[in-house]
Structures are given as C-alpha cells and as structure tokens.
C-alpha cells in the first residue's frame, strides 16, 4: 500500500536555518494493515500525515502509494488520488455546518465521477451506524456521532486507505472507545488504516505501532491482532 524511502521535509525559519521536520523517513505499510503512529506534539507526525495524505510535498525521497509513485505528480492528479484512494478523518471532524449528515457525506462525490451519490452516502452512513440520523445537522449530533459522519465521509468513495489524525482527540472516553471499535471493524473488512495519536493506549489497538520522535521513525512493536482483541475484553 505505502512505501516511503528517504523522505525529508523542512520548513524555513526567519532567523535560523530551516527546521528539519522529517528526517529520512522509511516505512512500508502493507494492504490491510492497521498502523498507529505515535509521538509527542512537535515530533513531525502531522507533517508525516500530510505527506502520507498527499496534502503536502516532500523535498526528497520516494513515496509510492498503491504501487504508483506520487513524486512529481501535478496537484490536480494528487487531488484525484486523494479522492479515490484516501479517506481522511480529522480531530476536529471538519463537518460543514448547516449541512445535513448525508449532504456532508456526499461532499467527496462532488469531485468524483461515481454514480448514485445519494445511495453511496446512505450506505456509508449505515456502515457507521447512523442510518437513522441522515437528515440531522452536525449541530444536532453528539461529538461521537459527528466523528462517525466524518468517517462515513471518508468511506464514501470506497478508499483503500483511511488516514485518521487524532480521531478521538475531541471525544469523551466512551465515545472514543466506540470509535476505536469502528476502526477495528473497518480494518477487519480489509481497509488499511493509519492513525496518528499521542495516546499510547489507543495505539495499542493497532496491529503495529510506529513511533516518531524529532522527525525520525522507529518501529515500536508488532502487536498481535488477537492479543489486541483480548486486551479489549479484559
């Protein structure tokens, strides 16, 4: 699914030299994997997320997504790839206000050629358990429900990769747990999930945890999926 090799990224600073945010990142993520990327704030994990999500450009290195090298692609082509292959889930949900759940979920379909957008949106909302809240506005939904709408929006184009950036960061513990179950279910259905979090407990729900610190990646552990399930029960 994802192959990164020698990825570097820096930001210019006014007085000092450029700030190296990512340093020679190397990571391979296979189809169907569930990977948590953990790290403290300022470690570069958001930048890595933006690069993984084709929202930001790299300075050097190779990034291959789904077998296709994305270095040097036009921004229009990158937009198309985001639409088809990646579903984003943000910490702040980023739902459109005064726009119903189903209308929010339809947004990615505005930019695709998929037919039957309405039916796709309904199916996505049913998949996240909100089949009975489709006409509700975000203002009328709980935080957990809003994030589910956002996940439905990420799923509606049927992407292979879900990128989640602190998806439970704005939720209470119970809603967070529910959401993690939903991610687990999506992964069980074969979707590749990359989740960024600073919460190591949440990260344990993933198969694999990668730590990022000061712009460098290190593999933390390979968690056995069955073990993770067990931990849930206990």
């Amino acid at each position: 699914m994802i192959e990164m090799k020698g990825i570097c990224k820096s930001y210019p600073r006014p007085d000092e030299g450029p700030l190296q945010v990512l340093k020679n990142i190397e990571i391979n993520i296979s189809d169907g994997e569930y990977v948590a990327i953990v790290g403290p704030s300022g470690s570069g994990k958001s930048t890595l997320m933006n690069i993984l999500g084709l929202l930001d450009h790299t300075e050097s290195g190779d990034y291959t997504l789904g077998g296709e090298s994305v270095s040097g692609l036009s921004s229009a082509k990158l937009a198309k790839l985001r639409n088809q292959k990646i579903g984003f889930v943000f910490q702040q949900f980023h739902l459109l206000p005064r726009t119903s759940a189903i209308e929010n979920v339809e947004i990615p379909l505005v930019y695709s050629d998929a037919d039957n957008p309405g039916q796709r949106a309904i199916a996505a909302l049913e998949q996240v358990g909100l089949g009975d809240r489709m006409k509700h506005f975000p203002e009328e939904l709980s935080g957990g429900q809003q994030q589910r709408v956002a996940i439905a929006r990420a799923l509606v184009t049927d992407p292979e990769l879900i990128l989640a950036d602190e998806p439970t960061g704005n939720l209470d513990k119970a809603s967070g747990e529910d959401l993690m179950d939903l991610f687990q279910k999506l992964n069980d259905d074969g979707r590749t999930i990359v989740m960024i979090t600073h919460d190591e407990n949440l990260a344990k729900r993933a198969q694999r945890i990668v730590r990022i610190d000061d712009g460098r990646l290190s593999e933390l552990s390979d968690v056995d999926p069955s073990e993770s399930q067990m931990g849930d029960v206990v």
Partner: protein
Amino acid sequence: MNKKLLFAGSARMMMRYKMRTFFMAIGIIIGVTSLVFMRAMGVGAEQAMMDTVNKTFSISTINLVAGGGHMGPRSDGPVTSLKVADFVALENQVDGVVLQGAMQWFPGQDIRYQGNTRQMAVYGYTANTEAVWQRGVMEGEYFTDDEVQSASRVAVIGRRAADALFGEEAPIGKQIQVGSVPLTIKGILELQGIDTHGADKDDEIHVPVTTLMRRLMNVDHVFAGRIVLDDPSRVEAAAEQINTIMRERHSLADSEPPDFVVLTPALVQDIVSNANRVLLQYLPAAAGVALLVAAIVIANIMLIAVKERVPEIGVRKAVGAEDGQINFQFLTETVVVSLTSGLFGAGIGIVAAVGYGSVSGVPMVVTIGSLSLGLAAAVIVGVVAGFLPAKQASGLNPVNALR
C-alpha cells in the same frame, strides 16, 4: 466532477445562509427590476411615438417646414418665405406627387361661443386633409375646395373643444367667433389624442388655410405642408428634387442655408428615436450603477465567506477537490445567487411595469430583449463579483486550511 451535486450544494448554501443571500441579492434585484421597468417605459414610449408618427406620417409622404432646421419659435420672428404657391409648384415639378397640402397655424386663440371662451390652436388646412394628413371628420363635413378658394368663414372642431364650448348643444351649424371673425361649424374632427409634441389634437379647430392667412392672421405665408407620393420608394429622390426646386424658388445662393426643412419618414423616425434615447439608454444605464454597487457588495460578502469557510475549503481539497473545481464552485455559488436574484428582479420588473402601465395608462412594453439584458447583467455581476473570492478560495493551501 458531479455538476448536479455541485449545483445542489450551491443552491443549499443560498437557502441556508438566508441573511447573507439577502444582502447579496438585494442590489441585483433592485438593479434588474429598474432595468426591466425603465426599458419597458422606454420601449413603450418609443412604440407609442412611432405609432403616432406612422399614423400621421405615412411612409410615402414628405413634410416641408418653414425655417432652417429650427422648428420652434425664432427670435427673429417666423420665417415667412414658404408660400402656398411653393406646394403647387412642387406638385407640378416633383416626380410622383399625387397630393399636396399646405398648412398654417395660429396657436392660443380665444374661441368664443355665446358666453363660453376657450383658448386653443387654429389650424389652416386645405380641403384634402383626410387624404394628406390622415384626419377626417367623425360628424358633419370637412370644408371643400371651393370654401378654401373663397376663404370661407367655416370651421371644423375637435371633439374635446366642441364639448367644452357647446356642452350639450349640437355644434354643427352653430357660429363661433375668433377675434371678430364669425365661423360656422361644419363638422367634428376624428379623435386623435395627444400628438408627439404633447398637444391635444382633439382640442383644436381647423379652418381653410386661406381663411386663416387672410382673415385671421393677415399673412401670406404658410408654416408647413405635405407632399404625398405615389410610391414610398420615391421618397429619397423626391426629397432631393424638393431641395433643388425650393432653393431655386427662394433664390438661395449655394452658400446660404436653406430656409426650409425637408422631413422624410426615415428622418422623422430618427428624430423620434433620438428624443427617446434618454428613456432607452441613459435611464437603464442608471440601473447599471445599482448593479455595479451590487457587484462590490457581493464580492465583499463572498470574500468574508471565504475566510469563514477556510476549514471547509481544506476538507474539500483533502477529499479530492482540484483548485479549478474549488474556483468553479465558488463562482457557481455567486452566479447561482446573482442569476436567481436576476430572475426575481425580472419578475418584479414585469409585474411593476404591467401594473404601472395599467394603473397610469403610460404605455409599458416588456420585451424579451430587456429581460435577457437584465439576466445577462445579473450573470455578469455574479462572475465579476465572484472572480476574486473564488481565486482566493482555490489558492488556499489545504495543510494550512485544515490546521
């Protein structure tokens, strides 16, 4: 890109943000309404004037008026060089002339009948007025050639003038008094209403042109006259002949300006359209100012909206919107609002024009042309106003927009 979803989304934005939409819409509605209304008034006025012109000035006639292109009162007194004999000569010398009639007028005369007095214009015409000037009598008779030859003391009176002077009495056969001259009423003129100069053609009297010149005005010249040709295609050639003959008859040197004006139907229509330019062009241009202000207001509101919607734009880009698609979307949003406002404005304009027309009697003509002009203006305002906001929205960096 799914255009249907995009338009649905734009329409939704319009409905869900009613206050914002209202302020964006109001300028265009006012602009397009006034544009449609004023064009309706202009076109209506032009058509009414053209109708009158065509009714009184058929396409195979030429008017000859005394004075050098100067139709109103002159500081040096009236031009006295135009004579009845000029028209007789033109009838004999210009090709294709079938009729001619000279006329004179004497405005603002006190006309008396018993105790009643009414001020009106006295016109002197020849006996063939019905054929030459398209106006006959609705009752009684017009005066005859013999009566013109002998400068008889007879008159034909307009309906309104007759009603004012005679009240319930039958006017025909009665004697009225103009100054010291008694005139016998022979007939009542056909109704004609208000002419292009604003004069009430039903509030005047006609007498033989000779009677007016010799008995009432004591002059030997006429004010104007008309030549009727057998074919409209002869008008231009005849106008040139008239010029030549008249210059010769009035002994004008080549360097001298003419002391007459030759008015052909094409020229009269030109003059009428020019007179109408204020209504047809300048007033609608004022509506353009309203639309310009609307464009500035819309651009401002949209620029603020783009600022408010930065996260939305970030999400849209994250889920696959290309820069060009964001640009198109924001342009679409402004154009959807501006076109809808334009449709409202056009609707209100039609209702206002038709309503005003039926209440006031002012001729109002709403044309497809003025409606299209209004809607096109609305769309242009939308595109112009939306250009900068759309550019700003599409240029946002998604990483910053989502932060």
